[in-house]
């Protein structure tokens, strides 16, 4: 426990200290105290704002598509007349166990402009050619696609187990009362599923906020800064430009955002019990 706490708290204090100092390669022995200058610079830094915005777009797109897809798969899995669902369920779990870095490389190959099978497929059905990674308009969405590929199974599996654990007699009662399958879904399955949906969303949103590997491998934040998410920018500031103080200030802002999100989640999580 002490080890755990010390490895948690000491870095935190140290990083707060850093945030108020100007730590660079040149000043690393005795970084001068600069007060809130790092934070002031941060609010004027358009690259930081841009990376926050990218993170937000990425989060919203990826998580909502994952949710819709996952829900569809979960519903397909619970249909009683369908056979082979066990095999299917096992099969769909594979993507999320694969290392994100592997997913990154796989999609880099798939998205390859001239030799990638996706473009080949698209052009052979006459939809033309997309520059998945090289175009600043599409790059962020390519990252989303890779993330969706990896994490849709997660949504599907959790939603499936949620639907599966719902009491059957409620469904039967609704059927006896003549509810159509849409109404059954809208007024029975969905409301009962809401707490689980909340858990899914929160877990994925928090994860999406942390996403680093896929972006780093797939686009490296480029072209330009068009797909740079906030964790990548912080990483670059700290470990490529070695502006530790500035990066610490950045991570301080991230920390505050994360605390707000997590405490929301935590209160819900506790209430559930």
């Amino acid at each position: 426990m002490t080890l755990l706490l010390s490895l948690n708290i000491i870095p935190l204090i140290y990083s707060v200290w850093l945030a108020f100092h100007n730590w660079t390669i040149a000043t690393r022995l005795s970084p001068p105290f600069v007060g809130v200058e790092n934070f002031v610079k941060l609010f004027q830094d358009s690259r930081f704002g841009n990376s926050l915005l990218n993170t937000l777009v990425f989060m919203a797109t990826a998580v909502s598509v994952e949710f819709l897809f996952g829900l569809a798969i979960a519903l397909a899995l619970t249909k009683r007349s369908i056979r082979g669902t066990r095999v299917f369920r096992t099969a769909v779990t594979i993507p999320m166990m694969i290392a994100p870095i592997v997913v990154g490389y796989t999609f880099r190959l798939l998205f390859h402009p001239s030799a990638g099978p996706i473009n080949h497929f698209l052009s052979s059905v006459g939809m033309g050619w997309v520059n998945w990674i090289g175009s600043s308009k599409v790059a962020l969405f390519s990252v989303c696609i890779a993330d969706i590929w990896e994490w849709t199974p997660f949504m599907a599996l959790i939603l499936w187990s949620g639907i599966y654990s719902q009491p059957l007699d409620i469904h039967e009662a609704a059927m006896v009362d003549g509810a159509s399958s849409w109404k059954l879904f809208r007024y029975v399955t969905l409301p009962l599923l809401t707490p689980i949906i909340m858990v899914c969303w929160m877990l994925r949103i928090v994860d999406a906020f942390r996403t680093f590997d896929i972006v780093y491998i797939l686009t490296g934040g480029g072209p330009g800064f068009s797909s740079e998410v906030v964790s990548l920018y912080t990483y670059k500031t700290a470990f490529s430009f070695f502006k530790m103080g500035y990066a610490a200030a950045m991570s301080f802002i991230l920390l505050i955002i994360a605390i707000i999100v997590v405490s929301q989640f935590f209160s819900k999580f506790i209430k559930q019990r």
Partner: protein
Amino acid sequence: MKAKFRNSRKVGDCLVYLFIIVVLLMFFFPIFWMMSTAIKPESEYLASPPIYLPQKPTSSAFSEVYKNLLFPALSNSIIVSGLSTVLAVVVGSLAAYGFVRLNFRGRKHIMFWIFSTRMFPPVIAAIPLFLLFNRANLIDTHLGLILIYTVFNLPFVVILMYSFFQTLPKELEESAWIEGCSYLGSFFRISLPLTFPGIVASTLFSFIFAWNEFFFALIFTRTRAGTLPLAIAGLHATWGVAWGQIAALTIIITLPVITLCFVLQKQLVRGMTFGALKG
């Protein structure tokens, strides 16, 4: 009327099957593509139009990887993920047990603190840790990476085991105490065996996390303690993009994890939701 109903149901079923098949194709195509790239000769990696099934399959990529890269990286990966998993599971389950059974002040706050470390972007911790480790000469050592992975796995283990210990009736242990068992004795003889599925799930997930982790490995290791994910990225940097070798390493990384998951299917769902759901 009845026949019509049955027909529309059949059409619905067919649509669902179709949907399942499409989904499976979408999920498996990328995996298939990596596998086929791994056995392609160099001229076929980036051929245009793409070659779906390799014309002249070779195993040269695998032998290259075996010769040059596998050994330091694979053994590093095994050492680091193995040890950090064991540490995290042992310490984490003891801590979780304490949280459930002992009622001390500030319990909720410490729980929140532990929980939150799992949720924060790792960048936040990386910067100060890097400077501290630099000073303590822990950069590029197994010990450094093991410490980090243990700390980052602990919250997960604690939360998961917490949910398992909570389902355990206290009376069971009380009766063990009456029979003359010590605190720790009842933990090891009664509680631990009964929550074995939880131990399995937390071991599985801690291991997968450490095995797949890239970000900390990128920052905290150089050449001596680099793990497998780092070896892949290294291939990218040094000789352009050696796709065959990347694909081969990819398969080497992925295989053990997928095998584990097939064997331990049942524990998956519960682990993924921090035990919020019963899988």
